[in-house]
């Protein structure tokens, strides 16, 4: 694994975009069960814009600049609920990365994920258990924060964190939706896995694999 500098983060985001687009139809299907069936599309549009933005950066870019470029890409192209939420999250990641040149430590990523999740909560006002992307993000943050205390290889930590997010996403099946469109369905939403929680797990897995592969 190379030094996780800005260029590596940018490459990782391009990998994230690829994974998200590969899962477009699956994410739409999840969203269609209880929502309007567009989540995979919105995420793909956002991630395509991120990819374009990454390709226009040069190699000397800082991680914060990379995250900010991703935030701007989401801001301009996506809209929907997910657009401002990811915009806020990437902007929070940029703020968390600050003027660091590399993000080599588990703690760096624990802070970033924590900042991202919190910014989503501030903007979207969802609580744990509301059946949103926070129901995979918060458990992932808990997981990586624990690992940051313990230490170990960054790539393993990112990967097990993504796994924790996916497990939590799957567990959203048991929840009643309280936020977003699906909240209108009440108990009918039980049994369906939340689309945004799932895509968040895919994004985290993309980071892990993208950084591992860089």
């Amino acid at each position, binding site marked *: 694994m190379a030094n996780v500098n800005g260029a590596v983060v940018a490459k990782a985001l391009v990998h994230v975009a690829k994974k998200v687009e590969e899962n477009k139809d699956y994410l739409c299907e999840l969203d*269609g069960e209880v929502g309007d069936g567009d989540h*995979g599309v919105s995420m*793909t549009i956002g991630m395509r814009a991120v990819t374009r933005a990454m390709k226009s950066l040069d190699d000397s870019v800082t991680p914060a600049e990379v995250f900010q470029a991703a935030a701007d890409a989401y801001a301009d*192209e996506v809209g929907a609920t997910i657009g*401002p939420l990811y915009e806020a999250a990437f902007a929070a990641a940029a703020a968390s990365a600050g003027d660091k040149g590399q993000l080599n430590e588990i703690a760096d990523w624990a802070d970033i994920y924590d900042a991202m999740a919190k910014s989503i909560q501030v903007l*979207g006002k969802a609580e744990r258990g509301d059946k949103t992307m926070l129901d995979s993000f918060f458990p992932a943050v808990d997981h990586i924060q624990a690992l940051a205390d313990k230490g170990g290889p960054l790539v393993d930590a990112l990967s097990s964190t993504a796994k924790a997010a996916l497990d939590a996403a799957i567990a959203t099946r048991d929840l009643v939706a309280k936020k977003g469109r699906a909240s209108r369905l009440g108990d*009918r939403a039980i049994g369906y896995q939340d689309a945004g929680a799932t895509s968040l797990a895919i994004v985290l897995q993309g980071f892990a694999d993208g950084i591992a592969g860089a």
Partner: protein
Amino acid sequence: MKKLINDPFDVVDEMFEGFISANDHIIKPVGKRSIARLESPIAGKVGIVVGGGSGHLPAFAGYVGKGMADGAAFGNIFASPPSKPVVEATVAVNGGAGVMYTYGNYQGDCINFDKAQDQCREMGIPVQSVVLNDDVLSAPKDQASKRRGIGGLFLVWHVAGAKAEQMASLDEVVAATQKANNNTRTVGVGLSSCIVPANGQPTFSLADDEMEIGLGIHGEPGVKRVKARGIDSVIDEIMESILADLDYKGSDVALLVNGLGGSPAEELYVVYRRVKQICDANKINIRFKHVGEQVTALEMAGVSVSLMRLDTELHDLITNAVVDTCMYKKL
């Protein structure tokens, strides 16, 4: 997937390009995804900015023109626009009397329009927002502020546009729009889902003998799935929900029978027939009526019925209105 499109990810841009060109006698582009009336800004007139996800035409952009909205922002299919095109439209239509945003109560729209509102206020443009929530079945009455906005927006904006054309102040336009919204109720029924182009699959599936009651305008599932049956009895059920939520008996009303996109006009008139019978039985006086596709969900088959209770102000605003927008006209 049976669509008149090219690359599904290009639909909105290509639709926007066609829309601009087809309506260039009424509107102009003021951004990549935003439009304004040709003559805007109109000095002293409150500017009305609407918007939301694409896939609902005539709503929302189709209502830009004389007598309804001054500007609109286009989102992706079923996705609220980001704040940027809303800001662009706001700047373009601000004639000094301030700007009113009005849109349906969806989380994405609330977040993005609020963001635009903050930005525009910072720029010194007075902006107020009226968020619409006519969909009776989307939340119980004691949580009406959670209800989403659907077909009734056509009636509410009819009122809003007429008030603004009278050169009323921003507060007055907001008050009339809010009153219109408070007096409007809608319930819909869907017979089939629709296909988000870049998704390529129907959002949900309904067996041939099923209907969804209480669905929205995004091809999403409704609040209950029932066995398909003769439409009269379905309309009876819809009207019962509406009349139980607000007291319309003996009132004057404005009425919309709204096609969701995939149902022929012939069927909408079959629906109107029943709605009229029920209104007559309840001594509800239809003072304004419209039957047609106004707030759609792509090619979804189905219909919604909206009733607005009219006081003298609302009555006169809506019946006297002259409207000449891109996709709706009234002489």
